[in-house]
């Protein structure tokens, strides 16, 4: 089966399952709970509002950015399991820079600068990480976990030093742009012509990542570094150099994801699993689910973000199940359960064949 066949049959399988589940849900509600189709239509319209779509896009952006980084690293043969940690570092750096420049009321340029500095800082961190992984052949799984632990420790540590608590005060979140007149087009207007610029940036990154990976020579080198490092080496390309580039890129992208998360949220939360709250892990699943394709990964990120935003939607739309409100905390578990279901049903993704193996040039 060719790759094209594989991806398309995968797409068919996934959409087929979604349709089946939805049909089953509708069937069960109509037959067992006496819900009329009209009610379902009204309820659906209450859930899938413009606000819901916008929140989903905003929620998907950090996951998609980290996922693109992670998939580049893994395509080239290095499993960067530290995405979650780098996202935490990105978020705290952005928060600290914003606070350093503008106190509790940073301006919009401050936010952009903070994002840039967060990316630069995580990039430097990832250089060190890449050296440990590639030069010193560190165990990729364990080192990645270590980055997570360091993020969970050092980010709240930095927050305590700056603000005396592990939470930052309210800083500022990024303004949505708005294009006059066009905004007034129903639905499309308030999604396309009034949007967070960071969502647009994410979209550009996703497309650029796809083009670069599949349409440029360097993209082929990346794929070869993961699938057939020996051939790449024979062709005179330094495998480890390609891997350094992708690992450093992956850390910077995760840092960008963390900074974008912060720029939308407007304050840093360092309690529990921090505000990143598993998004880096979900990013890994997103690119597995998307079969290492940047666009697929972004769609998977949308799916998880949509699941996450449903809880807000259920509350604002005041949707109840058999007369009882649905607990936000339970609804919040949906993405995590979703990840397990996805991994169980589509666990068998085709990994690049030399992931996890340090490459040693033969003398």
């Amino acid at each position, binding site marked *: 089966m060719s790759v094209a066949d594989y991806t398309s049959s995968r797409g068919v399988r996934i959409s087929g399952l979604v349709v089946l589940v939805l049909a089953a849900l509708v069937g069960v509600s109509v037959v067992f709970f006496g819900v009329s189709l009209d009610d379902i239509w009204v309820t659906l319209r209450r859930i899938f509002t413009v606000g819901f779509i916008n929140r989903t896009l905003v929620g998907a952006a950090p996951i998609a950015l980290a996922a693109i980084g992670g998939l580049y690293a893994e395509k080239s043969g290095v499993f960067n399991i530290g995405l979650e940690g780098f996202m935490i570092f990105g978020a705290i750096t952005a928060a600290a820079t914003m606070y350093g420049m503008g106190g509790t009321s940073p301006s919009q340029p401050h936010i952009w600068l903070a994002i840039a500095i967060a990316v630069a800082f995580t990039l430097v961190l990832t250089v060190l990480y890449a050296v440990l992984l590639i030069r010193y052949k560190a165990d990729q799984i364990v080192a990645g976990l270590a980055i997570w632990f360091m*993020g969970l420790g050092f980010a709240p540590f930095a927050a305590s030093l700056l603000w005396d608590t592990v939470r930052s005060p309210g800083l500022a979140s990024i303004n949505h742009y708005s294009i006059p007149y066009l905004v007034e087009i129903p639905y499309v207007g308030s999604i396309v012509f009034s949007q967070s610029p960071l969502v647009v940036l994410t979209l550009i990154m996703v497309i650029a990542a796809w083009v670069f990976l599949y349409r440029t020579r360097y993209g082929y080198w990346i794929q070869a570094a993961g699938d057939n490092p020996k051939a790449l080496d024979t062709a005179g390309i330094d495998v480890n150099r390609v891997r350094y580039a992708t690992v450093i890129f992956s850390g910077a992208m995760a840092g960008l994801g963390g900074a974008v998360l912060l720029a939308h949220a407007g304050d840093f939360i360092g309690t529990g699993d921090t505000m990143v709250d598993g998004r880096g892990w979900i990013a890994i699943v997103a690119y597995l689910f998307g079969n290492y394709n940047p666009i697929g990964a972004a769609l998977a990120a949308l799916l998880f973000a949509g699941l996450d935003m449903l809880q807000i939607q259920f509350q604002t739309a005041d949707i109840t199940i058999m007369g009882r409100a649905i*607990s936000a905390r*339970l609804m919040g578990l949906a993405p995590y359960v979703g990840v397990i279901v996805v991994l169980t049903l589509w*666990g068998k993704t085709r990994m690049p064949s030399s992931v996890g193996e340090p490459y040693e040039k033969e003398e």
Partner: protein
Amino acid sequence: MSDDPGRLRRGLDRAADRMLTASVYERIGIAIGSTTLAILIGLVIVAAVGHDPLQFARDMVVGAFGSERAFSRTLQYTTLFILAGVAVAVAFRAGVFNIGAQGQLIIGGISCVLAIIWVAPFLPTGAFGGVVLIVLGLVVAAVTGGLYGALPGALKAYYGANEIITTIMLNFIAIGLVGWAVDGPLRPDDARSVRTAYLPDNVGFPQLVFENPNFSIVGLLLALAVVVVISVVMTRTSFGYDMVTSGHQEPAATFSGVASKRMIVTTMTVSGMVAGLVGAVFAIMVQGYFIDPSGIGNYGFDAIAVSLLAANNPLGVVPAALLFGALDSSSSYVQINSGVPVQLIDGIVGLVVLFVAAPELFRMIAKRTGLGGDDR
């Protein structure tokens, strides 16, 4: 996430093999090197943020061992780290990554508390009833923790779902689910904070040596007994042998008739059972009830560091757990005395793990400096 047992897996196996074949001295050297380097970096950070690193170092020692209270608190954390570290080590030894000890601990702990509270009214209130309840609680915690560990094991063995990611997701699910339950259906009406009802008065380990309501030597002895049992099972029984070979030499194990898939599930079950016991000991010895699990401390995560530092050897877990117990125990003292935020300790733990992951680093340092050299 694997179409064969996985190329990734093979890479990991090689890393694990390297760990297994390395000499004992080398492993101890790497553990000490990693810890020292991490603590040195910690001290540099302390100095960089404007505190006195020497004062900080002194406070760490005093906060962990300086008084009977500090020492018993260190042992309290050590007890939990020993159990949690063994739980993680069992899985790592068999080539399975159990990052889910935290979730298994939470599920074990809450079910221990629930079982005791539900059964208590049917038993006499004296010491005998207490012992029966404690045994019941421990058993229930091991069973539920084992089941919660078996789930990702089965998903990995039969559906190829990566256990690293499923166990992490199950951690988030356990925290959310139990957090919801203790704040809702399980929260007594008179409870001012988020918690379950209290355990009955007769449920608790006796105070034999220390006057610390949160620590009993019985808990520590229980943890050490688990270490002995697990270590005997792993090194002296054919079951333990099968477990380790199926993790590291799967073809050989399959050839000798070990069902590797079932072995993965069994390994994760055993690992989860021990992790469940951590939750039970935490509930019975330390808290006496159960709280929102987002606030109970990252024993399951730090246990990964404990296990790695011990080169996944159940016996080595004991000194590693003592180190982490001391670090945790001193952290609050340090914050009060030096004003250095406690979270620094978590960061240092991360650094320890990072350095343990890169033994090559220390080999190279050793070679450059002429320490040890080739014979290490």
